[in-house]
């Protein structure tokens, strides 16, 4: 085992990630066998991808927050809030499509700023900020839309934004998602903000005492998260058309699960964008597979819960061994 891990190619790619990719392939094969071959084929994959897009952007966003050692479980409701406010502006206030998309990102940005400011500058514990902004996001969305759901237009009815998700059967969304993931990976690993975010997640005080304005960078992590949540909103409505006020919490858990499964440590400081991407694909595949096997969503919730527990426990054990 150690020998394999020392192999330079394996080292470069990351052993865990290779294992995770194998898990995906294994799962896919299992589903195909269990459904008698019915699972193979483009439609299933496209359907799984629909789920992977918005979840993926949520996961990428929350990866930055978890990297600082924080947590954000307002992302689901904020995503819905962004989709509702921008969608309402589009369908009821006559705002042009392009601007509506920007509004969505802007709403995400605002919540990111709000969360980040309270966490970084006022040291309010992240989970409390999350709880509060989750309520606020739901409330603001329903006040703004007068408690109505919002349906974004179909492609034929001027909904060109749907081409961001797919053109014909070509998954444009996948291309965009991978590109954004690459930008995130560069941002996290190759730039100053990313370096500071990771370092302060590992040891906030040490970074602060090195003369770094940790508050600014910590807040930035939440802002990046917010922007990605705003983008997630676009891909959510691109795939599922309608959002309803008052909801969205169900996606928090899955987004955080994807991130944690990919090897991002809940203790902060260690984060892997590629891991998150793979983690998200595992969850999307799982949900598609569970449906294909004829089970309800409930089983997916339970299995995801157990997988996260196992993944985090593995992380805890690994850290214990190191210290």
């Amino acid at each position, binding site marked *: 085992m150690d020998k394999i891990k020392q192999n330079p190619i394996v080292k470069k790619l990351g052993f865990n990630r290779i294992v995770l990719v194998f*898990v995906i392939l294994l799962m896919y094969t299992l589903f195909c066998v269990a459904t008698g071959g019915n699972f193979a084929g483009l439609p299933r994959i496209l359907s799984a991808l629909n789920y992977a897009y918005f979840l993926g952007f949520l996961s990428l966003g929350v990866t930055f927050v978890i990297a600082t050692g924080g947590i954000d479980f307002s992302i689901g409701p904020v995503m819905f809030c962004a989709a509702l406010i921008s969608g309402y502006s589009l369908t009821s206030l006559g705002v042009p499509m392009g601007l509506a998309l920007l509004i969505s990102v802007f709403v995400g940005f605002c919540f990111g700023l709000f969360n980040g400011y309270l966490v970084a500058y006022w040291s309010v514990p992240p989970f409390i900020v999350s709880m509060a902004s989750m309520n606020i996001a739901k409330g603001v969305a329903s006040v703004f839309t007068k408690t109505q759901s919002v*349906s974004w237009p179909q492609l034929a009815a001027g909904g060109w934004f749907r081409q961001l998700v797919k053109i014909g059967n070509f998954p444009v969304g996948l291309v965009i998602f991978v590109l954004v993931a690459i930008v995130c990976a560069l941002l996290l690993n190759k730039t100053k903000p990313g370096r500071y975010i990771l370092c302060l997640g590992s040891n906030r005080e040490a970074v602060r005492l090195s003369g770094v304005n940790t508050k600014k960078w910590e807040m930035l992590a939440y802002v990046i998260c917010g922007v990605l949540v705003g983008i997630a909103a676009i891909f959510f409505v691109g795939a599922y058309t309608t959002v309803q006020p008052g909801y969205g919490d169900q996606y928090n858990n899955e987004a955080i699960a994807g991130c944690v499964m990919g090897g991002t440590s809940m203790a902060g400081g260690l984060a892997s964008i590629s891991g998150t991407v793979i983690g998200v694909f595992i969850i999307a595949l799982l*949900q598609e597979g569970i449906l294909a096997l004829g089970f309800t969503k409930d089983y997916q919730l339970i299995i995801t819960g157990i997988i996260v527990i196992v993944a985090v426990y593995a992380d805890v054990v690994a850290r214990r061994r190191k210290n």
Partner: protein
Amino acid sequence: MRKKVLATLMTAAMAATLFAGCGDSAGTDTASAGGDTATATEGGSTEAAAGDYKFEIIVKSYQSSYWQAAVKGIEQEAEAKGVTVNCTGPNAESDIADQVNMLNNAINNAPNGIGLAACDQDACLDALQAALDAGIPVVCFDSGIPNAPAGSVVSTVATDNYSAGATAAENLYPALKDKIGNGQVRVGEVNQEATSESIINRGLGFIDKFAELAKADGYTVAVIGNEKYVNDSKAETVAEADADIVIEVAVPAQTTVELCATEASAIMNKSDTIGMFGSNQIAAEGILTANENLGVLGDKILAAGFDAGSVIKSAVSSGTMYGAVTQSPLVMGITTVDVLCDAASGKSVSDVPTDGYWYNADNMEDPEIAPNLYD
């Protein structure tokens, strides 16, 4: 490090065993064991005998007993006809995205037909196009999808919700008539949300009919509360201060019974309230929950509900609730399967309206009504 890898592998293995285990046991919601996979790969094979048909049915959720009755009807009829049905539905009526995934999944299973009670009328459009392309007929029940791609939805089996809502107003208004005219009175309406077509139509049907009846008697009406309903209502209205009758529409922040109850009790606590309408099972139960403390129903306030279920039924029979409109989910379920069979065998099918019945303590036992009062 090695442990981490081990744990990851364990996860995979565990997931695998879970699936393997699941494979053996029949899914909780599968009506008959789905052992034989449909042979048809492209669309429904029209030659197949009725016994070979396999249908995918997707309900809005299982939360209320309304759906339990519908599923019962579907399963009954499926057994009688010897077809295989597979019923699923999201956890809650608000899980729109989950339902879309379920629909896509159903299409990918290539059944002979799909029965769909859509949570949202717009969210399913893409999937319906896909069903059309795959040649799978879709029968909508409970709620229609007005903008569906032509040819995808072959039939809609649903109650006319607008007129069902109106039915409630038609029956409630005469009972309240005596109380109207001496100063401003208030009639409350609780809708669990302002999203699904069926609920909105019921709510609007009630408001419009009530206003129409009031106007015929020379009273003025104001509609206040949730803006969606206020704006979409076709009723002729005046300013709140000038109105003889104020119709107040409340929508809770989430579709849960305790929030419906909070909203209901706020209206029922007002001294000028004389009537209440709850536009589905959850909203009607919310009104009854609020009444547990207020004790105003049946005497100071007359309430009309919608749907049945043990809670509403016992309230109606005891006179706490003046009456309610029930649809016939059982019949709807049976009809849906019939229509699906017809569609799958290539017969031409059309929309089937189902009825909404007004029931109160007096007619609950009538043979026409009783079968539609599910628990």
